[in-house]
């Protein structure tokens, strides 16, 4: 070991310089982390004192304490900056000394090269080269592996492929295109696109000729009171509970469950939804379809649009719905407009509104606030007095709006307490029910306040409180929840006949051809002659409870029971397989 004094001196200076650098470095690192709490803006102590001062402003000692503490922290902060600056230069000087001393010491101990004979130089270089090649191949593999791992572990939520981007970036324009070939009115009439048929009248023109029998029956996986809607060979119903709400699609001829899709992750919709009253449940509003999409709304304010294949087009949260018994007004659809009567509020109006959306994109076309509390009736759209009018019922106002821009046409103060039965347009009149009080016929051609002038006739006999009326030609039929069916004259309101079906009735009656179908709550399907003479044509008992109104489409009657969906048709049709 070369122990010349110079070498030992150099070694010692190197060690001292090294220790000095480590010391200064240590102090600076300590200062850096220790400052985490006592900088003037970060120190929790100072913030707490300020909160206390805000509570009682005149506290002198507290003010003095804050000022001293603030000054101390600010002085520490300046001190720390100065320390860092000098520390940096000290570190620089220290490392310079360390390096020079060490380099000089190493230079002293430098051994001169003594090349030894290398007999196998050739083979060695070839062996080294091949090992180098293998290590290079190893590096290549490692890098490729890294690339793949990073690629696979990609937690990016943005779409990967180009067309996924297209869909993300241009949802609205994509919908504009199919507007051109929106289904024509006849197609709406041929199907059952919304609650009680295309115009909400509960009637269908074709006839069944014989008493219908059950063709198939399918289990409904989720509870709900929404009526079935039918388009083409598909039947759609909605169901759900507070933690999951879904849309189900069945094949109309076989009853097979084609798909079910949950309406979830609706932007803005709270995860935990408030309890809805048990008898209404979450899925009371009936869905709507416009030939390209189906729309479903639920009691917690979630609204979803789905394609016929079940893929979600758009979802929207309409805000918390404050409805004492649970929101139940069904959706209405006309061309590409989707209408929602969102009435809210216990006894006073709380943000009730009528919203018109564009079906394709969910864009709000217009929105009108309504001076009414919560209601449960479904709006209907009629062509009367040269305008397409939307008739809405609520307590106390019946209001008509124009479909195009939602301006108010006329209003009448005729209703009170819980308005459940929906309006019907029959015999040139708008028939509306003030539950348990009056059945009235209103002329839809007025403007402004028509409370006194608009009512054609009114009757207090056998007024329904839940089921909506149904009319055909000159006759109007109603059913009370106690089971009393009555027939009135459409132009004068005179009672023609009445009968007691001795079964409670929740569902609204419907007319198929010339048969009046009344669906009892405990499964009794009663068929009466829809004419001036009372004549019961038949009664079948179904093993279920029924609250939802029937749907008539492509030759069948669809009924939604509490547990099953039933399809009834002409008895001689071949008995489809039971699922």
């Amino acid at each position, binding site marked *: 070991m070369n122990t010349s004094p110079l070498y030992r001196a150099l070694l010692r200076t190197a060690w001292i310089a090294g220790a000095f650098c480590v010391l200064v470095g240590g102090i600076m690192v300590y200062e850096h982390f220790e400052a985490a709490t006592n900088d003037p*803006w*970060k120190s929790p102590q100072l913030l707490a004192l300020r909160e206390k001062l805000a509570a009682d402003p005149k506290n002198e000692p507290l003010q003095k304490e804050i000022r001293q503490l603030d000054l101390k922290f600010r002085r520490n902060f300046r001190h720390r900056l100065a320390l860092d600056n000098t520390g940096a230069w000290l570190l620089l000087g220290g490392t310079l000394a360390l390096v020079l001393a060490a380099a000089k010491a190493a230079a002293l101990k430098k051994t001169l090269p003594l090349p030894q004979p290398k007999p196998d130089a050739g083979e060695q270089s070839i062996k080294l080269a091949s090992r180098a090649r293998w290590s290079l191949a190893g590096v290549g593999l490692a890098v490729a*592996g*890294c*690339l793949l*791992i*990073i690629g*696979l*572990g*990609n*937690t990016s939520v943005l779409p990967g492929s180009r067309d996924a981007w297209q869909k993300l970036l241009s949802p609205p324009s994509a919908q504009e295109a199919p507007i051109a070939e929106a289904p024509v009115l006849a197609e709406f009439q041929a199907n059952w696109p919304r609650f009680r048929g295309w115009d909400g009248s509960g009637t269908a023109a074709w006839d069944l000729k014989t008493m219908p029998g059950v063709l198939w029956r399918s289990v409904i996986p989720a509870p709900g009171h929404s009526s079935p809607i039918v388009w083409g060979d598909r039947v759609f119903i909605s169901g759900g509970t507070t933690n999951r709400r879904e849309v189900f699609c069945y094949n109309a001829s076989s009853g097979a469950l084609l798909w079910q899709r949950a309406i*979830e992750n609706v932007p803005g919709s709270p995860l935990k939804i408030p309890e809805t009253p048990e008898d209404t449940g979450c899925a009371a509003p009936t869905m709507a379809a416009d030939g390209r999409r189906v729309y479903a709304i639920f009691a917690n304010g979630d609204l979803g649009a789905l394609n016929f294949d079940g893929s979600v087009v758009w979802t929207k949260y309409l805000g918390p719905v404050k409805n004492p018994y649970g929101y139940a007004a069904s959706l209405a659809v006309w061309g590409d407009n989707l209408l929602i009567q969102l009435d809210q509020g216990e006894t006073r109006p709380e943000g009730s509104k009528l919203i018109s959306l564009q079906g394709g994109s969910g864009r709000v076309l217009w929105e009108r*606030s309504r*001076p009414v509390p919560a209601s449960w009736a479904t709006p209907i759209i009629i062509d009367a007095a040269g305008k397409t009018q939307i008739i809405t019922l609520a307590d106390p106002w019946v209001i008509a709006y124009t479909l195009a821009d939602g301006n108010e046409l006329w209003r009448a103060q005729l209703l009170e307490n819980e308005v459940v039965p929906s309006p019907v347009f029959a015999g040139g009149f708008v028939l509306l029910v003030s539950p348990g009080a009056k059945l009235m016929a209103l002329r839809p051609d007025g403007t402004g306040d028509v409370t006194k002038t608009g009512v054609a006739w009114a009757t207090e006999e056998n007024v329904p409180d839940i089921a909506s009326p149904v009319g055909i030609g000159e006759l109007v039929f109603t059913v009370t929840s106690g089971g009393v069916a009555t027939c009135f004259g459409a132009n004068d309101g005179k009672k023609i006949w009445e009968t007691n079906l001795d079964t409670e009735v929740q569902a609204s009656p419907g007319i198929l051809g010339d048969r009046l179908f009344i669906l009892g709550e405990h499964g009794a399907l009663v068929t009466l002659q829809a004419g001036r003479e009372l004549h019961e044509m038949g009664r079948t008992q179904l093993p279920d409870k029924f609250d939802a109104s029937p749907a008539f489409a492509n030759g069948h009657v669809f009924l939604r029971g509490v547990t099953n969906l039933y399809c009834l048709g002409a008895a001689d049709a071949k008995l489809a397989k039971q699922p």
Partner: protein
Amino acid sequence: MKPEFELFDRREFFGVVAKTAAVIGLAGGAEAGAEGQGTANPFAYDISRFQKTDPKLIAYEEVTRWPIPHKDARRLAIGPDDQLYVCAGNYINCLSRTGQRGLELALAGPACCVAVARDGAIFAGLRDHIEVFDSKGGRVARWESPDPKTWFTGLAAGGNDVFAADARKLVVLRYDRTGKIAGRIGRKDAARNVPGFIVPSPFLDVIIHRDGLLRVNNPGRHRVEAYTFDGDLEGAWGKPTAAIEGFCGCCNPIGLTALADGRIVTCEKGIPRVKIYSASGEFESVVAGSESFPENAHACTDLNDCIHGGIDAAVDSDGRIYILDIVTSDVRVMKRKG
């Protein structure tokens, strides 16, 4: 939905592995040091405490709300027959109680303020002059201001006087019904110990209170000052604080109106809120807190500073308060609760 019991699904598992691999990989190495810092900003200017109003204090609720015909609104006033006069853009619109559009006065320049006398005469304050219209909308007279740099931002029409608040020359001019200037109120005057107005942004307002005194807001001093018709300062109240009982920011209140029983309604911007004080200045209740003016509050937060915010209020004969939101250009009708 991801079942809870599973620690994390396949994609996240690969995410974790990728993060470790990424740290050694180049792309990842770069990412390690790049992203901003933790979830808290130690320098955040936190006034969220003042943006939530104690529900017990809120005494009014919104009945309805309708948009106003033009953008760029500034002031509104109530006429004798409860008609609403809104000045927005170069127009003054008269709206019925239900928001239907009635009379529209087109003016040469931006309409800054409006007042309607008991006999129906409409006084429209433009930047530097006042135009007088009869109740049918016919132009009757044009009153010039004494100084070209005048900027009228508040008008009050009394029996036989009209008071015009000039935010630029910091004075309230007193006109008589013929248009002659009968006096100047509020100018800095040590002898009459009037401290003078501080008006950093163009919001000076004047109302004629039922107790016969004027009420003028002094936004820079965060006070409401009471003056006689001849300009003697009778008293002033107001405390500069963001807390609910004071006036927040650099220059509030920006709008005044009075209820039938003499209580005063104040409007503030920055933290947009409308409050009610007793005639002598004790804080009483809140008409609408900052949470019901989200767009207005936002107008002051993002990039442009607070010159686009602002609110004005007016009261009709049966106590309903109409609040004009300058940012959303709509009028809200507030009715006392219960």
